[in-house]
């Protein structure tokens, strides 16, 4: 019985992991198109191109899997998996509804989630180094620099929530969540979401894959399925960062009739944030590399520290 339960939870998480990123990807196709006055995909699948990403997947599978002659073969082939799988593990720990509606409740869930998400970036570093290509290497280095800069404000913002809730467990944080946390943790939410975007290398923080400067960064040498896995990891990342922001700052499953419709609230918040990610991508141009670093160190980190102080002061005042 216990084994069956575990297997069910794993399968459910896997299904979410395989379906939702595609859903977000398709939404991005359509939303971006309409924001630019276009229609986007219209043919694949018949109805408004709903099967476009399935068709893309089939195309990627058919392509030849090329490994450059001078590449570090094993590392090169392993990199997409290292980049993609952490998001699957993170998804396992994210609570969807009240009363244990979660893949696996972990006591130090927040810690686990942030640590594992950092591993995903290692995959991109591996790809950049193993490709034996100067553009890949530059992309990898930019990824590393970005990770170093943005992990700090992200962790500080998350720490503020953990401090407010007095626990590191994600379901625990949601149990302690009150509506007034929304304004209270507002700065933290901004910092966390922005840093999350940067960690995903989503525009306007996509310097590591800036195609006009360094071709496609760490992914330059990839083709076929491995390249598709990198793309999938980007969309899985959007899902994870949106879900995490929803859990930590927007109250996850909290909402009217949370006992029955908690999962719906969680999904709504997640997809609203995913839409925001797409919206930001369409609206803003790419930052320059130095502007990116500047933004992290002189805007986000001080803001995160302010939030931390604010949380501490109010926490003490309430107590």
């Amino acid at each position, binding site marked *: 019985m216990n084994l069956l339960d575990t297997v069910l939870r794993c399968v459910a998480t896997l299904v979410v992991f395989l379906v939702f990123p595609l859903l977000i990807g398709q939404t991005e196709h359509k939303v971006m198109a*309409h*924001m630019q*006055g*276009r229609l986007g995909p219209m043919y694949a699948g018949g109805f408004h191109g709903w099967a476009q990403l399935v068709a893309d997947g089939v195309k990627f599978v058919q392509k030849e899997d090329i490994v450059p002659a001078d590449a570090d073969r094993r590392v090169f082939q392993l990199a997409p998996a290292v980049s993609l799988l952490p998001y699957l593990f993170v998804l396992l720990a994210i609570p969807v509804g009240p009363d244990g509606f979660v893949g696996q409740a972990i006591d130090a869930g927040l810690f686990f989630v942030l640590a594992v998400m950092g591993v995903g970036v290692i995959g991109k570093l591996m790809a950049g180094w193993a490709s034996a290509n100067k553009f890949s290497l530059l992309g990898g280095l930019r990824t590393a620099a970005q990770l170093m800069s943005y992990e700090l404000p992200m962790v500080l913002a998350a720490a503020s929530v953990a401090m407010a809730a007095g626990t590191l467990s994600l379901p625990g944080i949601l149990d302690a969540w009150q509506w007034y946390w929304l304004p209270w943790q507002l700065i933290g939410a901004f910092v966390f979401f922005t840093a999350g975007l940067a960690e995903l290398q989503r525009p306007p923080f996509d310097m590591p894959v800036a195609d006009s400067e360094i071709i496609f960064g760490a992914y330059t040498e990839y083709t076929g399925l491995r390249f598709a896995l990198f793309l999938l990891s980007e969309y899985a990342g959007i899902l994870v960062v949106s879900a995490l922001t929803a859990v930590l700052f927007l109250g996850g499953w909290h909402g009217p009739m949370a006992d029955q419709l908690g999962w719906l609230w969680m999904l709504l918040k997640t997809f609203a944030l995913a839409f925001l990610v797409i919206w*930001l991508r369409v609206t803003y141009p790419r930052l320059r590399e130095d502007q990116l670093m500047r933004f992290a160190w002189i805007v986000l980190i001080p803001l995160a520290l302010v939030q931390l102080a604010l949380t501490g002061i109010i926490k003490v005042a309430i107590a």
Partner: protein
Amino acid sequence: MSFPGAGLAKGLAVTLRTMTKKTVTAQYPDVQPVLPPRSRGVIALLEENCTVCMLCARECPDWCIYIDSHKETLPAAEPNARARTRNVLDRFAIDFSLCMYCGICIEVCPFDALFWSPEFEYAETDIHELTHEREKLREWMWTVPAPPALDPAAEEPKEIATARKAADKLAAAAAAAEAAAAVTTAETVESVGSVGSVEEKGDDA
């Protein structure tokens, strides 16, 4: 008044507004475009009107119109008249790989034999196939839209004015003849002269 970040908010507003507007994408092969009147798609030939005067071929800036013809002698209509000669069109072709769609040939044609057609789907895989012969050009004639209507207060076209004048004259003569006939039946005697005069009048018309 501007506050920090106003520009960023404005950018977001622009993209959101664009999303709610109708898209500008033309779904061409599925939906035919709505072309403006007098679109310059292709040049159609109404060969019945062509007299092989060669004006179009001579005026064409890039010499893309090919015309061949021969003369035919028509037998004299009356015993004492001369036999007439007539130009017969053998070939009329336009090379649309050279044509620059200036429309000068259509402007110069004195007999209304060339027209703009809005038809535009005649791409070929071989450049030689873009030279279209008279049959094809004649077929395109069916796609030529009717000429735009005249303004409400415009003067009549000359052809119609002439035809109407002739018709009016005929009608007037017929009416006069009828009136004269009525007079003759009423008076019965010594009316021959007057009827003759009416008939003369009718012949004039």
